[in-house]
């Protein structure tokens, strides 16, 4: 890993910007097998400064944002009508990430002001409250955004970790990104933002993929591509087990 980092540092082109950000992941492909119980991906990064730029007195801040495959989600609210509680209002989130985690090197409010965070989409709150996250209905959509965040974080799928990014040296940092087993398969985007004195200096994007392999992959494919055979096979297995049990436990 250290070797890879060194190579990255060496070959990165001299950027026009004062600071350049170089990032890599411990793995770009996570394989799901039968004993999969979630995973953890390490993000490594280095800040490269060109010769003219002097070190910043305040040091750097890093924000890592990981977004899972997109989902179309409907949030519904129950209201009392007479005796019973019914689903009344609903709000659709057509393009919400299935998984969303944010890791920062310091508490968010020390890194940037609230308006700046909203503008730059830094932090789960800023992303969930972004104007383009769902159709804006003035203040009516607020409780639904809050509810989405609350319900997703209850399942461990939306979360924030202040001080989740550690600087190993003033220019090299790392972060651990836990992904629970309930997070769906697909592509996960990793966005790293470099800040100093509340200003974003650089951003970099990379991604990793969560894929099923072996038996899990075959089952998934069979269920999708040969659904009738798959259904009949399951039915046959169920009948077989039922017959087997009645033979084993036969008393007469």
């Amino acid at each position, binding site marked *: 890993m250290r070797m890879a980092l060194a190579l990255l540092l060496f070959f990165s082109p001299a950027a026009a910007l004062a600071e350049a950000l170089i990032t890599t992941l411990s793995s770009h492909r996570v394989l*799901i097998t*039968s*004993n*999969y*119980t*979630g995973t953890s991906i390490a993000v490594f990064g280095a800040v490269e400064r060109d010769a003219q730029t002097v070190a910043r007195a305040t040091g750097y801040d890093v924000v890592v944002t990981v977004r899972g*495959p*997109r*989902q*179309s*989600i*409907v*949030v*519904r*609210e*129950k209201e*009392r009508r007479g*005796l019973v*509680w*019914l*689903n009344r209002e*609903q709000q659709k989130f057509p393009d919400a990430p*299935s998984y969303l985690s944010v890791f920062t090197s310091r508490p968010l409010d020390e890194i940037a002001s609230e308006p700046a965070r909203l503008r730059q989409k830094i932090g789960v709150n800023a992303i969930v409250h972004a104007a383009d996250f769902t159709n804006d209905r003035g203040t009516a959509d607020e409780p639904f955004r809050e*509810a989405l965040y*609350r*319900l*997703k974080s209850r*399942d461990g799928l939306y979360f924030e970790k202040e001080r989740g990014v550690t600087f190993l040296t003033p220019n090299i940092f790392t972060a651990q990104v836990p992904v629970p*087993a*309930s997070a*769906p*398969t*697909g592509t996960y985007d990793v966005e790293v933002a470099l800040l100093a004195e509340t200003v974003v200096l650089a951003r970099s994007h990379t991604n990793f993929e969560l894929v*099923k392999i072996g038996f*899990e*992959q075959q*089952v*998934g494919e069979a*269920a*999708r591509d040969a*659904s*009738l055979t*798959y*259904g*009949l*096979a*399951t*039915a046959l*297995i*169920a*009948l077989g*087990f*039922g*017959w*087997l*049990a*009645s033979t084993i*436990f*036969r008393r*007469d």
Partner: protein
Amino acid sequence: MQIYLPIAEMSVSVLMILGLGAAVGFISGLFGIGGGFLMTPLLIFLGIPPAVAVATQSAQIVASSTTSVLSALRRNALDLRLGGMLVAGGFVGSTLGVWFFAAARRAGQLDLVIVVSYVTLFSVVGSLMMKESISEFWMKRRGGTPLPPRQGGQHAPYLLWPLRMRFPRSQLYVSVIPILGLSLFVGFAGALLGIGGGFIMVPALLYIFRIPTSVVVGTSQFQIVCTTLVALVLHAVANQAVDIVLAILLIVGGVFGAQFGARAGRNLRAELFRFLLAILLLAVGLRFALELVMRPNEPFSITIQETRT
């Protein structure tokens, strides 16, 4: 020990699923019902997506009911002729139920339809059975003979409608119209609620048709196997929501549970059997009624319509 479910796309504890299968299988074997109305909410509570829960537990119902049907067949406690009629009506009812399910979903009130149906069905069927079993119990204590065995020709008027058919094993000679009507209704409710409908079928056969208790369980299980097999294949084709790993775990737990349940059921006195089933139904009905009228802890709920990978 954790295992990853390839269709549900999550990992679960093997022991917990085996235990769940055994517990529901026990109740299923005891009362001659499918147990789907218990299994589906429990699986959803464990975090399994509702579509996968409904589809997969039907595999477990097939397995445990097959065991019951085969052992009933050996004990000659199964009326194949009556079972065949019930299956025929049940298929028509299921088709209507699937259609109504889609209509309620389009209207956005599927949850409400399901909860209200559960509450109504369970409290009506449960309290009828409760009343019956308690009055039977008191009559027995006073030394009276409760519910004399049905005599030939002693029938309610609707059983004497045209198209009468003989069911020797059930000691029955009745019109097929009420039988088809019952199975139509059970098929409809079953498809709508994702259940086999044994808990409606068993009391109806017992009280409306006065079929001997020994034949009721086997015949009801036969009808459940047939309709659930169709439902399982339809779920696999239409929703691709059957998780074979979860199904096998539930089945293995379930077949053991069902064996012990069936054995316990044979030693149970008939009125106690009905009393216990009534309590079970009332408890589930009450749980759904509370869900309907209590202030929810979390008024919001999320539904994932689609994941783009």
